[in-house]
C-alpha cells in the first residue's frame, strides 16, 4: 500500500519525467525556443535589450523595466543584460544596476554563489559581474577564494569590473589560483581593474621573487596603462629577470614609450635570448627615435627571423631616415637574409603610398 510519502515521490518523478519529455520534444521542434543555443532566447533577449534602451533614454521608468525583466525567462534576462552592459559604463551602468538589484532573479543568483556546484557558482559570478552590485562583493570574494579555477576566475572578473582592490591584492598574493589561465586572459582580467589598480600592480612587480602567469600579466598591464612610475622596476627586470619576465618587460616598456624607456630597450637588443631582442625591436618601433635606428639596423642582420622582421618593421616606422637605412641594407649582398627582409619592408612602404594603412597593420 502506497504511503503519502511514496505517492509524493511518484508525483515528483512523474513531474520530472513530464518536464524532461517536454524539453526533448521541444528540442526536436525546429520552431521551438529550446533548441541548441536557443534561438527563442536570443529573440527574447533582443526584446529585453530594447527595454533597457528605452529605460536609459527615459522612455520608460524603473518600475516598468523591473516588471518586464521579472516576467522574462532568466537566461533571456541575463543574455540581454550581457549584450546591453557591454556597451554602457559609468553612470548608466550604475542606474540600470540600481533598478535591477531588487529582482528575485538577482537575489537568487547571489544565493547561488554559495551553491555546492562550482559551475553554478561560476555562472552566478559571471551574471552578477554584469551588475554594479557593490553590496555583493563580499559574496563574490568568498566565491573567488573558494575556487576552483573557473569560479575563481569568473568571480575575479566580476570584482574587477567593480574595481575591487581587495580582490586584486588576493589574486596577486595567490598566483596558483590562476596558474592554468592563459596570459592573454590574465592581462584582460587585470586590465578590468582599471587604472586605479596600477599602483598595486607597480608595487607587486617591484618586489617579486617568484614568476607566475599573473605576475607576468601584471607586468604587461602596467605597460598597457602607460605607467611611467614603473619604468625603474621594468628596467631592472629587463636587465636581470628570467626570460619570460624580460620579454614581458620589453613589451611593457614599448607600451609606456617615451625617451626614458629608450636606453633600456636599446640595451636589450643585445640580450642573449632572441625572444627579448625581438620584443625590444618591436617596442622601439612604437617610439620612433633617430638614436635607435642604428642599433635596429644591426638587428636586421640577426640570426633569428623574428628579430630581423621586428627590427626591419620598426625601422620602417621611423619615416624617411628609416627608409634610407632599409635601402642601404637591401643593397648589401653579403647578408641575403637581411637584404630580403629589408626588401620586403621597402615594398610595403612603396605600397603604403597607394593604399595607406597596410604597413601599420602588418607591423
Amino acid at each position, binding site marked *: 500500500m502506497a504511503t503519502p510519502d511514496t505517492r509524493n515521490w511518484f508525483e515528483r518523478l512523474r513531474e520530472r519525467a513530464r518536464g524532461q519529455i517536454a524539453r*526533448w520534444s521541444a*528540442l*526536436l*521542434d*525546429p*520552431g521551438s525556443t529550446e*533548441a*541548441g*543555443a536557443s*534561438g527563442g532566447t536570443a529573440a527574447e533577449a533582443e526584446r529585453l535589450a530594447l527595454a533597457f534602451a528605452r529605460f536609459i533614454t527615459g522612455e520608460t521608468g524603473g518600475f516598468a523595466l523591473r516588471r518586464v525583466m521579472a516576467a522574462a525567462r532568466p537566461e533571456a534576462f541575463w543574455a540581454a543584460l550581457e549584450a546591453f552592459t*557591454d556597451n554602457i559604463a559609468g553612470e548608466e551602468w550604475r542606474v540600470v544596476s540600481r533598478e535591477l538589484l531588487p529582482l528575485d532573479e538577482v537575489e537568487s543568483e547571489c544565493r547561488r554563489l554559495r551553491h555546492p556546484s562550482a*559551475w553554478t557558482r*561560476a*555562472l552566478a559570478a*559571471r551574471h552578477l559581474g554584469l551588475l554594479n552590485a557593490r553590496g555583493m562583493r563580499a559574496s563574490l570574494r568568498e566565491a573567488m577564494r573558494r575556487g576552483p579555477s*573557473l569560479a575563481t576566475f*569568473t568571480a575575479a*572578473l566580476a570584482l574587477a569590473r567593480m574595481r575591487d582592490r581587495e580582490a586584486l591584492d588576493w589574486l596577486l598574493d595567490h598566483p596558483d589560483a590562476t596558474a*592554468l*589561465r*592563459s*596570459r*592573454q*586572459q590574465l*592581462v*584582460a*582580467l587585470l*586590465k*578590468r581593474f582599471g587604472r586605479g589598480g596600477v599602483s598595486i600592480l607597480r608595487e607587486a612587480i617591484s618586489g617579486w621573487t617568484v614568476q607566475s*602567469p599573473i605576475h607576468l600579466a601584471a607586468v604587461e598591464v602596467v605597460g598597457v596603462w602607460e605607467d611611467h612610475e614603473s619604468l625603474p622596476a621594468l628596467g631592472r627586470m629587463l636587465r636581470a629577470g628570467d626570460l619570460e619576465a624580460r620579454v614581458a618587460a620589453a613589451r611593457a616598456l614599448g607600451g609606456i614609450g617615451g625617451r626614458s624607456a629608450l636606453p633600456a630597450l636599446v640595451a636589450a637588443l643585445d640580450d642573449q635570448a632572441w625572444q627579448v631582442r625581438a620584443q625590444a625591436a618591436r617596442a622601439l618601433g612604437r617610439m620612433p627615435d633617430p638614436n635607435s635606428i642604428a642599433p635596429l639596423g644591426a638587428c636586421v642582420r640577426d640570426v633569428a*627571423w623574428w628579430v*630581423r*622582421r621586428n627590427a626591419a618593421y620598426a625601422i620602417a616606422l621611423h619615416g624617411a631616415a628609416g627608409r634610407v637605412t632599409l635601402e642601404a641594407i637591401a643593397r648589401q649582398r653579403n647578408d641575403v*637574409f637581411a637584404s*630580403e*627582409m629589408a*626588401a*620586403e619592408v621597402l*615594398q*610595403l612602404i612603396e*605600397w*603604403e603610398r*597607394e*593604399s595607406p*594603412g*597596410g*604597413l601599420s*597593420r*602588418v607591423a
Partner: protein
Amino acid sequence: MWRDLSFWGTWLGTLLLIYSLGVCLVYIGLALLAFIEARLQRRRARTADRLSLFESDLAPSISILVPAFNEEPTIVDSVRSLMQLEYPSFEIVVVNDGSTDHTLDRMTRAFNLRPSRRTLRARVPRERVRGVYSSPDYPFLVVLDVVNGGGKARAVNIALAFSRHPLILVVDADSVLERDTLLQLALPFYEDASVLAVGGVVRPVNGCILEHGRVVDCTLPRSQIARYQVVEYLRSMLTGRLGWTLLDSLFIISGALGLFSREAVLAVGGYRDGSMGEDMDLCMRLQRWAARNQRRLAIRFIGGAVGWTEVPETLKVLSKQRSRWHQGLAEALWYNRELLFNQRFALHHGIAFVFQLTVEFIGPVVEVAGQLVLLALAIAGKVDLVFCVIYFSIFVVGGTLPTLLAIVLERAACPRFRRRRDLEGLALYALFENFGYRQLTAWWRVMGLVNTLRGRRTWGEISRRGAQPAQIETSESRAA
C-alpha cells in the same frame, strides 16, 4: 537453428553477431558521451569571457592556410568569405598547389595581386615555390604559387613557412565558415594555455542557401547521395568526435576545419609529406606529444564551431573519396601504432586506438564479408532465417539508432535545420542508408584497404559547382 550454419562454422556466425552488437553498443555509448560533452560545452560557453577575446592585442592571432588545387569556380568567393570572419587579428595564406585551371588568375584579378618579397620563416624547398603574391589593398592576404606534388600536406607545410601567427587554421578552399567560427575555435586557446588543437564540425553545404559567402538557410540537398552524406557527417563528424573529446582521445580533426598551435605542429614535424590521411596523422602525433608532455585535454572538438563543405554528388567521386579516406586511416594507424597499449600513454589512448582499428578500420571488411557470405548462403538455399533476422535487425538498429541520436545531438549542439520536414527527412535517410548506401561505402573502404596493401594511391578530385545558382534559384522560388 544453428544446424544449417554448421558447415561454415557456428562460431563464425556467432562472432559476426557479437561484433555487430558490440559495434552498435559502442556507437550508442559514444553518442551518450557526446551528449554529456555537448552539455559541458554549452555550460562553458555561458561562462566564457568573449568580450576580452575581442580586445585588441589580447586575441591570439591566426594564420588561415588554404591549400587550393583547381578551385577556379569557388576560390574568390571562398577568400572573400574568409575575409568577413569576425575575429580581431588574422591573415590568409592561400597555396595554389599547381592548379591546371585559372585559380591564380582569378585571384590576381579579384584582389589586385602583385609579386611580393615576403620572407620565409622556416626552411622549405624553394624550388617548389614559383611565386609569392600579395596585395596593397589586402595586406593580410598572401598567395603562394607552388609546384604540385606531395599532396595537401606539402602545400600546408609550405604555407606554414610563410605564415606569421601563433595559431594556424587549415581550411579547404571550398569551405564556408560561419562568422563566429574563428572565435569559437580560438576560445579554448585563450582560456587554457595547454590546448594544442581545436576542431570544428564540418557539414555538407549542398542544399544550403549562400548569400555573400554566408550560409543563410540550411535544407536537405536535392541529390540523394548528398542526403546520405548529411546523415553520415552528423553521425561520424559530430557525435563521434564530441564523444572522443570527453575521453581525451580525439584522434582526428577534420582537414577542412582545424585550429592548431603553430609551435606544436612544428614540434611534431609539421604535416607528413605525401600522407593521404594527413589530418588524422597530425592529430595522433599531437596526442602522443601531449601525452609525453603531460598535457591533458590538449586536443578538443567544439560542437558549436561550424564549417561547411561541398560533398560529392556522384558515386564515382564519392567512391574515390571514401577509398582515399580509408587509405589515410590505414596510414595514420600504421605510423602511430606506438599508441597501442604503450605504457608511455594513457589507457584511454589505447582504447581509442583499438576502436579505430577494430571498428573503423576492420569494420567495413567484416561488414562486407558477412553480408557476402549471407548472400552466398541464401543463393545456395542454406541460410538460417532466424539468424538472418537477428543479424539484419542488429545491422539496421545498430545503424539507425546512433544516427537518430546524432540528429538529436545536432539540435542540442549546432541546430541549423529550420524546418520540421528536413528533420523528418534526415530520420528517414538514417533508416534508408542501411539498405544500399552503407554497403556501398563499406565496399569502397575495403577497396581503399586493398589499394593500401597493393601500394596504390588514388587522390581523386571533387568537381566544384561554384556559386551554386541552382540553390539561389531554389531560395527565390521558395520565397515566391
